């Protein structure tokens, strides 16, 4: 863990301690389980986003993708009677294709990531709404899928399975990003795509792969979200989730210019954001202030991190200067 990650972890613990002191129910197993369930859902999303951000890109369409893919998933298994494993795979493939399309437009046709995914945001939301004719996709009463429900919304020894899924994905993605050649290329491309190409890296493919990973993880998250809410009104489902994912990554030390950040960081960022949401509800803060609290903490977090770095550098220099008074003495 880098210094940055440790600072973030500290912030999470301090906030947690304060909340627990005010309302001890914060530490109830049921509350921790509820919160870690959401950490699982948003964490999967944020890891996907992280892969794109590291290339210097951005994926704004995840909220809309979650709505569209969620609607399709529920429609497939609840209305069309498709076997859920088939639907599951199909949705992941669809997510991958969406990612591939974005990656292709960005890497091959050289469109700006912000533009491509902004269009995705608009288009998928519209398609999802059109698909249900602005209605809601949901399960009929009594419609149950025990295995699927256990895997997505169930708990094992009180730990939500979605959280366990996040841990597994995190471990895999950590190796991919921090130990594999592919990960190294991602960092290189994020810093300087042109130079990476001159180093013989097939940058186009790598960038597309990053968007595909993001698409597949988003699709997975879409299924988890669908099984969590069990109902999707496509006009509002997943609204602003891209901002949560981006905020988690940025809090976790990613730079939107690309080439920086770690898997541990993005997970810690997700945890902090969910902790904040939980806090607002537990401490009885007016929910109108929910957004403000979130914004305020992100800002303070980023600011402290930045200022702390600057402060440390300064202190180090001052100390170094003091360490050799002899030179100083020669001055006159």
């Amino acid at each position, binding site marked *: 863990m880098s210094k940055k990650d440790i600072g973030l972890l500290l912030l999470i613990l301090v906030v947690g301690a304060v909340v627990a002191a005010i309302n001890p129910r914060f530490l109830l197993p049921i509350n921790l389980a509820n919160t870690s369930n959401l950490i699982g859902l948003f964490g999967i999303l944020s890891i996907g986003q992280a892969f794109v951000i590291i290339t210097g890109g951005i994926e704004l369409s995840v909220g809309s993708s979650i709505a569209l893919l969620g609607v399709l998933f529920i429609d497939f298994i609840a209305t069309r009677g498709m076997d859920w494993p088939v639907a599951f795979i199909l949705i992941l493939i669809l997510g991958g294709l969406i990612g591939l399309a974005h990656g292709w437009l960005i890497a091959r046709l050289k469109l700006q990531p912000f533009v491509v995914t902004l269009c995705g945001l608009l288009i998928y939301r519209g398609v999802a709404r059109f698909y249900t004719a602005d209605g809601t996709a949901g399960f009929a009463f009594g419609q149950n899928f025990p295995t699927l429900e256990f895997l997505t919304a169930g708990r094992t020894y009180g730990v939500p399975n979605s959280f366990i899924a996040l841990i597994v994905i995190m471990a895999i993605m950590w190796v991919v990003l921090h130990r594999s050649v592919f990960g190294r290329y991602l960092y290189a491309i994020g810093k300087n795509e042109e*130079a990476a190409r001159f180093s*013989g890296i097939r940058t186009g493919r790598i960038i597309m792969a990053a968007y595909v990973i993001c698409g597949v993880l988003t699709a997975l998250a879409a299924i988890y979200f669908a099984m969590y809410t069990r109902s999707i009104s496509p006009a509002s489902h997943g609204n602003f989730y891209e901002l949560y994912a981006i905020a988690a990554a940025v809090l976790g030390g990613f730079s939107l210019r690309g080439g920086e950040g770690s898997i541990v960081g993005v997970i810690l960022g997700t945890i902090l954001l969910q902790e904040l949401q939980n806090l607002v509800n537990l401490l009885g803060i007016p929910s109108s202030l929910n957004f403000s609290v979130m914004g305020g903490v992100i800002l303070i977090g980023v600011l402290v991190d930045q200022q702390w770095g600057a402060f440390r550098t300064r202190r180090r*220099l001052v100390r170094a200067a003091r360490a050799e008074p002899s030179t100083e003495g020669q001055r006159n």
Partner: protein
Amino acid sequence: MLNVPETSSFAGVEAPFLSLSGVRKSYPGVVALDNFSMEVAPGEVIGLVGENGAGKSTLMKILGGVVKPDRGTITVDGIEHDQLSVEGSMNAGIAFVHQELNLFDNLDVAANVFLGREPLRAGPLKLVDRAKLREMVGSLLKRVGANFSADTPVSKLSLAQQQMVEIAKALSINSRLVILDEPTSSLPLPETEKLLAVIKGLKADGISVIFISHRLHEIERVADRVLVLRDGILAGVLPKSAIDHDEMVRLMIGRALKARTAVSMQTPGAVALSAQDIRTTTYPHHPVSLEIRRGEILGLAGLVGSGRTELARVLFGIDARLGGEVYTDGKKLGLHSAADAVANGIFLVPEDRKLEGILLDFPIAQNISLPDMPAHSKRYLVSVRSENKTAEKQRSSLGIRAPSVATRTGSLSGGNQQKVVLAKWLAMNPKIIIMDEPTRGIDIGAKAEIYNLMRVLAEAGVAVLMISSDMEEVIGVSDRVAVMHEGQISGILDKDDLSQENVMLLAVGKKPRLAKREPEGR
């Protein structure tokens, strides 16, 4: 005129490893390379020289697969290609050190050297074998004489150190041809020596080298054959026996160069810039004091990482100083930003022109006018006419080769870009000008012009601080030379004591041999 041969064939008997024939590359408005043919034999060191914008880098980029030629053929091992791709070039065993540095400063040295060719661990996952990587890079670094370790982040390296990483990178490729495009442009003498030794080593191993440099004596020392480019056309080929400094210059610029710059006759005036006890962030415990007088050219020499660039940046207000004060004309300066420096007539020609010197996407005229917008505007509105007038004047006085002053600066050759950086300050009547490697990548003709210019400036009462790693330049141009060693001024040499040997002694922290008296400032 010289008779331009169809193909510059070499004298050896072996089959050429690589040959080009009839290659042409044009950009909008310029033909960068035309009807070019050459052959490269195994183990041959080819020196490639030519003025700025002659087409050297273009030729190399074609070999590296970065640029596609309009026509012509490239034959590698007897197989004819219309063009090479980056991979094709790598697979053919061509390694490349680009003129402009392209390292990833978010990765460490090891990752940079083997980027795209990492040693892998067994298994399907393509995981990097980090131990092996570190070991391989460590030995390469030793070979180029680097004093930093393989896991240093590149963001912590100076420009020259980065240059060494680039060279290590080229050596790391199991190559048959190494292309070095001005690798020494920011290397001081000892490192340059190491590089020349490396080139000889490569030759001994049967690896071919194409070596581009504007420092012709380096070419003289290692080249087996010299190709001279002029305006994109092969102007001449000199076999080993005929390699000669003056002949190269004649072929390059079409005439003999007049004698080196005249030594100053005047006595320097009052102190223009005085830096007292400046402490920088890299060397916080080493206060530096320095005085520059009106009308003198003060050279600043030193080894890689000795802290010269850092000092220049502090004097220009770009970097915060930890202590000390700067005075101009005896007055204390409120120096908090580059804007303050510019407002007080202190200008800096930075070391890294691509990042700091120019806006690649701006037209030449707008780059030149940028620091002096108030003078090119009326009531806050820009006067394009005044901009263009100034730019035209600078273009002709510095000989910037470009279709027009509206040309995108990024499309100029490296040397011409450097001239644009100079032009923007020269247009502003400098009082004190700091030049960090001012002739980096500049051809010999233009170099002479720039030296002349510096002399003209000095004679007009400007104080010039010239940071340079080019020993000839330091000794030939400066009135006095300050030498830095590990963040401190280890000595200042007057004209009488100025010798290559003394500069080197001070640069490594030893005492110089002085003619009359003890060195100052120690």
